């Protein structure tokens, strides 16, 4: 067994399991210990060690019989607590679901289970995935493993998939699932030095995933490297008749695409992603990224996405509107928390007033307002029109380039307590990730380097619809050029 559990990747674990150098029971046992020892991170809402040991033993038995199911078989992973898991409490980090035990399994977690992977537990997140710092969870905020020793406050891990990235970056799991509505996979990956990938809208089934904004929600992997992201995505994705927006297409071989070089790749640098307020270090890393691609023989050109600045306001109409509709189901009647009232309306109001946290209430109310009679056209229809323009900008650009290179986030991880008074300052975290979400495009964050405080910074690549192979090809080239090996608690 490796002494530092952070040395394990999906690929290396799969290899060691196949060669019989380690069993899934041993590997899983080591990660269960790490999970228990790492509770100060608050990465998990629910730990499932018994279930994990059981599945690990089943995996070992399969392998012994020559029935191993592929590279995920026996690999211990963490599951964002937004995926419904049969018989295992699923909370969405909300009081309103804190006693909810699904009687069914989400398609994505079911796919991973069927691929043989071992679920260690359910990870913390922003309540209903609404947030960029994992500070809105009913179960408390998550600590970023990169928090400097002796700091007065914790660094946030980003959000909403904050527990998932803390678990992987802190060595409590080999990989984890995330979901991304406006950046909830990519921004936390950037804050913790991990790879976070959001596939094309429709690649991963939304069935059984607690819904936030249905036209934007996509599941994806959070891993230590690009190859692992390709392996894990392959297991998660695929057509699902239970989700009408699930793409009826097979996933291409993204792992194979990781071995191709970047020679001749056309890389676009969208000029509108330059922000006045952006730290110089991020601009520098972005320029460095472009230079790496030039050095590898790619054609790097400046491109224009004229409607970029409208993406964030568009998102903050569309996402709350869909959320207000999706969250109408939490009524205290069929499942979840209930607060009794004298009338049905009073019961609804008290249940939702007490069951939802402040940020969720804010967004549900914004959504209710923009969808209400007299305002629907002015806000919601207008936003969906601008969304069309944003998607058209991308479509035009992808006639000329294969991928776009941008920073993932406008800052490195910040301390808990910062940006908390002003919701809009918090929303700006997603300024670079939201446009691809609105257009349904695949995108990936790859660790690019460290800032002067020693905190990781990610670079984002975006490709056209269903062009995941190109995206993985570019991402693995970028990963190789960046050569990022830094880890929390170790100075590079």
């Amino acid at each position, binding site marked *: 067994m490796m002494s530092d559990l952070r040395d394990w990747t999906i690929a290396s674990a799969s290899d060691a399991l196949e060669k019989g150098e380690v069993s899934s029971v041993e590997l899983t046992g080591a990660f269960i210990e790490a999970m228990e020892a790492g509770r100060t991170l608050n990465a998990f809402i629910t730990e499932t060690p018994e279930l994990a040991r059981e599945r690990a033993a089943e995996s070992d038995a399969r392998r012994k019989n020559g029935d191993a199911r592929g590279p995920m078989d026996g690999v211990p992973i963490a599951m964002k607590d937004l995926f419904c898991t049969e018989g295992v409490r699923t909370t969405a980090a909300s009081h309103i679901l804190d*006693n*909810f*035990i699904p*009687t069914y399994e989400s398609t994505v977690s079911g796919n991973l289970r069927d691929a043989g992977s071992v679920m260690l537990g359910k990870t913390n997140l922003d309540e209903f995935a609404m947030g960029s710092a994992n500070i809105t969870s009913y179960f408390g905020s998550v600590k970023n493993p990169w928090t400097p020793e002796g700091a007065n406050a914790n660094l946030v891990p980003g959000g909403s998939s904050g527990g998932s990235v803390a678990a992987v970056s802190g060595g409590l799991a080999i990989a984890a699932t995330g979901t991304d509505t406006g950046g909830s996979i990519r921004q936390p990956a950037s804050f913790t030095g991990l790879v976070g990938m959001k596939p*094309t*809208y*429709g690649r991963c089934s939304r069935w059984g995933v607690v819904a936030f904004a249905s*036209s*934007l929600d996509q599941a994806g992997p959070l891993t230590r490297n690009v190859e692992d992201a390709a392996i894990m995505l392959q297991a998660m994705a695929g*057509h699902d008749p239970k989700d009408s*927006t699930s*793409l*009826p297409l097979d996933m291409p071989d993204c792992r194979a695409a990781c071995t191709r070089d970047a020679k001749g790749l056309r890389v676009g640098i969208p000029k509108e992603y330059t922000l006045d307020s952006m730290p110089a270090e991020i601009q520098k890393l972005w320029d460095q990224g472009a230079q790496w691609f030039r050095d590898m023989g790619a054609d790097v050109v400046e491109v224009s996405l004229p*409607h970029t600045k*409208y993406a964030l*306001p*568009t998102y*903050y*109409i569309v996402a709350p509107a869909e959320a*207000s509709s999706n969250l109408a189901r939490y009524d*205290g*009647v*069929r*499942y*979840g928390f*209930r607060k*009794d*009232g*004298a*009338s*049905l*309306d*009073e*019961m609804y*109001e*008290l249940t*939702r*007033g007490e069951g*939802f946290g402040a940020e969720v*209430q*804010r967004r*549900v*109310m*914004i959504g*209710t*307002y923009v969808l*209400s009679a007299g305002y629907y056209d002015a*806000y919601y229809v*207008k*936003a969906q*029109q*601008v*969304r*069309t*323009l944003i998607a058209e900008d991308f479509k035009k650009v992808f006639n000329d380039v294969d991928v776009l290179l941008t920073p993932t986030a406008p800052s490195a991880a910040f301390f808990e307590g910062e940006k908390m008074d*002003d919701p*809009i300052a918090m929303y700006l975290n997603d300024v670079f990730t939201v446009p691809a979400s609105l*257009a*349904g495009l695949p995108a990936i964050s790859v660790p690019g380097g460290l800032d002067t405080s020693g905190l990781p910074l990610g670079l984002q690549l975006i490709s056209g*619809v269903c062009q995941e192979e190109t995206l993985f090809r570019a991402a693995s080239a970028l990963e190789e050029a960046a050569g990022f090996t830094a880890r929390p608690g170790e100075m590079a």
Partner: protein
Amino acid sequence: MSLTKDDVRKIAFLARIRVPDERLEPLAGELNNIVGWVEQLGEVNTDGVEPMTSVVETETPMRKDEVTEGGITDKVLSNAPDGEGPFYGVPKVVE
């Protein structure tokens, strides 16, 4: 367009969220900030632009319209806060 305390009270009721009176005023401020900020979309010329209805253009497969599962009342009711026999319990709604 600026939201008043009464507007927020109305929106909160539409959303069926009980907001304590003392929170209405601060909430009006927070919502006004957000609404004021998203109103910059007014600058964009969207004449003749179709509102997006489908993120990824694709043929949606059809399935047969048939019952695929059922008879799982216990499972369906297993998380009900106030299950009464094979029913959900709610406060009295009919006088």
